[in-house]
């Protein structure tokens, strides 16, 4: 029998996505090898926003680094503040007043809501929604940023946490405002879900796309919603509880299908859990001091310390080496999205171009943090 060569001879094309591209969330670049529209290979290229923050961190004093942490992940400056401040507190063994702990929790959980809302909005933008979910998310974010501005004086670059507490106590009128915002959050999340969760187009675009099995997720050091959407029950707030998270009652949502859609659902559910934490914190917050007095020239003792928190995007850790002087000897940022990106080529292979942006959106990167 004669065999006939039926396959056409085809060539792959190399597509350079980024650094200037609408859905790379900044200046991120992917070199994609395409067969038609199917991804054969993908190589992430980053560093376009590299500012060598770690070197700057060695130049600055401990205090001066706080405003720089704001600029890592500029969507969630409060949790960056918290991670760094807690690392230094661990280094210098500073006790934090209880009220300050509560204020920190409130701020960080608000940040989580902001981040997840924006992440979902951005994901939907990548899926081709004409900005509508993004703008609804931004509306809610705006209200929360107003709270941040009220307390810290700045909307995004909050610079609010200090070693041993926070910059200032909550202003008068903050709590009622906070209560009304928190009370309206469930309705906002419900509306968001009504807009998106059952949407058929959203489902067929997200379900079964970018499947990340649990063992792969752990092997690739994935963290945050990405890891939990892969069904790994690992939330640092629970397993390695820091601050006063052990006082709150909340659940850790887990994914069952490990795909983009699960990452969306996990983020939605984490927003609901954050609201729960906020409600409890508002109820329990005590009166009292919000910071401890530290010497103007702050010199922590020698040693090295690593502290990590569950930032909205994943495990945010600071590794500090102190030589006893005013400046850190080594200031290392373990940024969640940079490491989450390691798994991107693995997730994308075999999918279409359109799925790449969806997967990237579901990882939820912020280039300020990836490139540092």
């Amino acid at each position, binding site marked *: 029998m004669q065999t006939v060569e039926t396959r056409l001879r085809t060539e792959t094309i190399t597509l350079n996505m980024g650094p200037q591209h609408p859905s790379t969330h900044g200046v991120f670049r992917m070199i994609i090898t395409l067969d038609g529209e199917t991804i054969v290979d993908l190589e992430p290229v980053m560093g376009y926003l590299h500012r060598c923050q770690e070197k700057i961190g060695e130049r600055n004093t401990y205090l001066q680094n706080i405003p720089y942490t704001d600029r890592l992940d500029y969507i969630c400056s409060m949790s960056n503040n918290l991670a760094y401040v807690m690392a230094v507190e*661990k280094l210098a063994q500073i006790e934090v007043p209880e009220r300050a702990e509560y204020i920190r929790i409130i701020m960080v959980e608000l940040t989580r809501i902001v981040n997840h809302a924006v992440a979902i909005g951005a994901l939907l933008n990548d899926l081709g929604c004409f900005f509508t979910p993004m703008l609804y998310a931004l509306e809610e974010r705006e209200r929360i940023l107003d709270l941040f501005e009220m307390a810290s004086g700045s909307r995004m670059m909050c610079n609010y946490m200090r070693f041993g507490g926070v910059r200032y106590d909550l202003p008068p009128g903050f709590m009622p405002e906070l209560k009304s915002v928190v009370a309206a959050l469930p309705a906002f999340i419900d509306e968001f879900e009504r807009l998106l969760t059952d949407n058929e187009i959203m489902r067929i675009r997200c379900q079964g796309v970018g499947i990340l099995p649990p063992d792969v997720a752990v092997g690739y050091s994935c963290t945050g919603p990405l890891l939990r959407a892969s069904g790994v029950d690992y939330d640092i707030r629970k397993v390695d509880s820091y601050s006063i998270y052990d006082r709150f009652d909340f659940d850790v949502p887990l994914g069952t299908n490990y795909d983009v859609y699960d990452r969306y659902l996990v983020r939605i559910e984490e927003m609901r859990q954050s609201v729960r934490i906020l409600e409890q914190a508002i109820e329990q917050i005590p009166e009292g001091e919000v910071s401890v007095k530290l010497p103007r020239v702050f010199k922590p003792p020698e040693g*090295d310390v*690593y502290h990590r928190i569950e930032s909205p995007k994943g495990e945010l850790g600071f590794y500090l080496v102190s030589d006893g002087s005013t400046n850190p000897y080594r200031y290392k940022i373990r940024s969640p999205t940079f490491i989450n990106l390691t798994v991107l080529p693995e997730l994308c292979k075999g999918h279409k171009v359109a799925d790449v942006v969806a997967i990237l959106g579901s990882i939820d990167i912020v280039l300020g943090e990836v490139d540092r």
Partner: protein
Amino acid sequence: MSREVYERLVEEFPETSLEYLEGKDPAISVKADDLFEVARHLKEKQGYDYLSAVTGVDYPDRFEVIYHLYSMKEGPGPLILKVSASKEEPEVPSLVSLWPGANFQEREVYDLMGIRFAGHPDLKRILLWEGYEGHPLRKDFPIEGYQTIGQEESS
């Protein structure tokens, strides 16, 4: 936590020189040659399946690479491995074959600190561009750099 693991490790690897370092976060110091075996043992036998961070530090007398390991099941507490590398030819075995997640982190350490990872599948600069001179996080690196942007084409 670290202490127990350390003792178990000493039992398992009697001929390697492990060292227990006290501190705020107790750590275990490992020789570069033994790192891969120790890490594999930790991952496969001790359940430390999660590599959180790879850090390079430039001390006056040595380079040090620090690995923060966690266990997904056991919960809290990092297990910290510290590996020293020489000042002249810093080289450490790569752990990418154990934890693929070490890929970018090792590239970053190589990029900024200049520590080579033997056996890394694709060891090249990640944050800075190819052809950049020097490794910025080294203490002897001048803040203003060896070259300015645009210079590398002409030189």
